[in-house]
């Protein structure tokens, strides 16, 4: 029987296989950030261990970093201590570092691809669940806990078991104004936040093949919100074109050898998946979430659902508590929901294409009077690129705040937080209770919906704007 792409990548990395034990899997790239690593470095020190392959390890500062005045010391002493611990640890163990404000700094899942470190067929891990982002390149990439971070630092391997295989096929043409974010929100609404549990998801089909690398990253990023640990897309010409000439991409004869190997990374015709989902791209519209988990999403044309309409008892209770937390009434059209804050950023939608889409909608217009819009590039390089293209001016002239790079309001570990009761439209990936600040209420949206929403102050699809101006 044939094998899937994910199975092929997995098999290529098995260091040791013994009956009755997990496989030992080799890790090609280990990304490290300040939040989930300090205890791992302490563990190494306590046991007198070293880092086996500092040359396959890269660190950055992202979760805690303020997005204003990057060169000043961090005001919050606890955040500062965490960032300082990372600097001290990486210096001690010889790991490359990307300190705040320097060229390579940014959200860990933005900088890997940007540097060309993320390549097809690799195994990539990080102490962060959105490591699935890197699957966009046909890599097997997944999040790990701190004990595993320590294990990878010490041995460059991880004990693993093969995952089940799931196919999400999206065929057809996406309607105008519908983006990768809408695809993945629709997928999660369809299969649920546990739909991918125990599986690796391969996204396939003509609509996926037609996406840019950055859009593919948006989709793979949220595999974890569908319950899967990893999601991936077969590498193709789009992938190779993105990688060619990047800082860490192979060069010369190495490039040719690499591309030849990458072309083999495809699911066999006769491979079998444990689960298959098919979605018609043409049927998709902009999606927004109404609840407190990413599966609680609907087309923007819909209304807040009535918990009584959920057949399943658990779903009904979850919907009731979500509506209570979100301060929403069943039957309210999604388009009537007023937001206080719009957040454009995160490892889901903080890349240059995301900023371009939003800027295009904001150009020459103004953010609604009572709405605050925060634009946080995913990395320093994205920020610099946007500034070269003049996007920063578009945002600031529209009345949005142009910030430094980091995770920012995606999780509010830095000062960028919602106040209790405040409501956001956010391009990030989690609408959990309190995720963006205690008592904050989050609606997950695409960059285009975020920008349109900023202009009107209510959840708005980009197409609604054209109607207004026409």
């Amino acid at each position, binding site marked *: 029987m044939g094998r899937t792409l994910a199975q092929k990548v997995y098999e290529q990395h098995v260091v040791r296989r013994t009956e009755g034990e997990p496989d030992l899997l080799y890790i090609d790239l280990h990304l490290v950030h300040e939040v989930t690593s*300090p205890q791992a470095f302490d563990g190494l020190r306590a046991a007198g261990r070293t880092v086996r392959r500092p040359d396959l390890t890269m660190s950055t500062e992202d979760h805690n970093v303020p997005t204003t005045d990057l060169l000043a010391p961090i005001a919050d002493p606890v955040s500062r201590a965490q960032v300082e611990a990372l600097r001290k640890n990486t210096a001690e163990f010889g790991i490359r570092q990307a300190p705040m404000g320097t060229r390579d700094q940014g959200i860990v899942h933005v900088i890997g691809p940007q540097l060309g470190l993320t390549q097809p067929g690799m195994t990539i891990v990080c102490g962060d669940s959105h490591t699935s982002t890197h699957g966009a390149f046909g890599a097997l990439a997944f999040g790990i806990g701190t004990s595993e971070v320590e294990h990878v630092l010490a041995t460059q391997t991880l004990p693993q078991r093969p995952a089940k295989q799931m196919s999400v096929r999206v065929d057809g043409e996406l309607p105008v104004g519908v983006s990768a974010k809408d695809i993945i929100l629709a997928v999660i609404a369809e299969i649920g936040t546990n739909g991918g549990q125990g599986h690796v998801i391969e996204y396939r089909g003509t609509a996926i093949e037609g996406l840019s690398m950055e859009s593919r990253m948006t989709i793979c990023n949220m595999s974890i919100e569908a319950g899967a640990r990893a999601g991936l897309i077969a590498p193709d010409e789009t992938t190779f074109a993105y990688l060619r000439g990047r800082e860490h991409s*192979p060069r010369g004869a190495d490039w040719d050898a*690499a591309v030849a190997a990458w072309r083999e990374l495809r699911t066999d015709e006769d491979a079998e998946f444990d689960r298959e989902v098919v979605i018609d791209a043409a049927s998709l519209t902009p999606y927004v979430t109404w609840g407190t988990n990413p599966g609680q999403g609907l087309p923007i044309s819909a209304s807040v659902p009535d918990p009584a309409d959920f057949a399943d008892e658990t779903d009904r209770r979850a919907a009731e508590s979500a509506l209570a937390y979100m301060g929403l009434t069943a039957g309210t059209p999604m388009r009537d929901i007023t937001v206080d804050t719009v957040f454009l950023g995160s490892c889901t939608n903080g890349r240059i294409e995301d900023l371009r889409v939003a800027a295009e909608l904001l150009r020459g217009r103004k953010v609604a009077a009572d709405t605050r819009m925060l634009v946080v590039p995913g990395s320093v390089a994205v920020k610099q690129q946007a500034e070269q293209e003049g996007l920063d001016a578009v945002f600031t002239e529209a009345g949005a705040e142009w910030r430094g790079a980091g995770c920012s309001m995606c999780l509010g570990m830095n000062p960028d937080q919602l106040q209790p009761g405040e409501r956001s439209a956010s391009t990030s990936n989690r609408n959990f209770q309190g995720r963006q600040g205690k008592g904050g209420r989050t609606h997950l949206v695409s960059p285009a919906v975020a920008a349109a929403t900023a202009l009107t102050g209510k959840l708005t699809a980009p197409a609604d704007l054209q109607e207004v101006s026409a």
Partner: protein
Amino acid sequence: MDAFTTHTGTAAPLRRSAVDTDQIIPAEYLKRITRTGFEDGLFVAWRTNEPDFVLNKPEYAGASILVAGPDFGTGSSREHANWALLDGGFKVVISPRFADIFRNNSTKSGLLTVVLPAADVEALQDASEADPTLQVTVDLGAREVRWADRTVAFEIDDYTRWRLMEGLDDIGLTERHLEDIDAYEAQRPSWKPTTTPV
């Protein structure tokens, strides 16, 4: 990691589904750089805002087994969620279904996660609600949860069970296979990237 063989204690019924890691411990409590002391963040929003929250009830103050609805631990990879539960006095979490990373982390941190059928989870929730002093035994050796006159079997693979019962550190186990790692590295394609600045 402490060895886990069998544990007997009282249970707290947490009748919620999809308890995500931001509820177990919000991001602002992740800034500590030590491996302990995370109990202050455990379910802090619910503990602060919901007087009826099960862990606010004095009769469950000493509970060491958390009995939760399906999809416990969805969201982030933060092992701090495991540590916060351990620091908060829990040794075991029982649920019909766990998020993958949370469950995987639990096999490293020494918090035991036990999957039971939904009907049994509900029966245990009912029983510990009726009698908060109910003694519940989680027996890893026998792969059983027992309370009152009930015995419910659970599944766990032999290898993980052995490692937990011995309290063995994964790194130590892997280090017995360094020659295999050396051999693998020797045949990796030379064009694979390194992080060394170019």
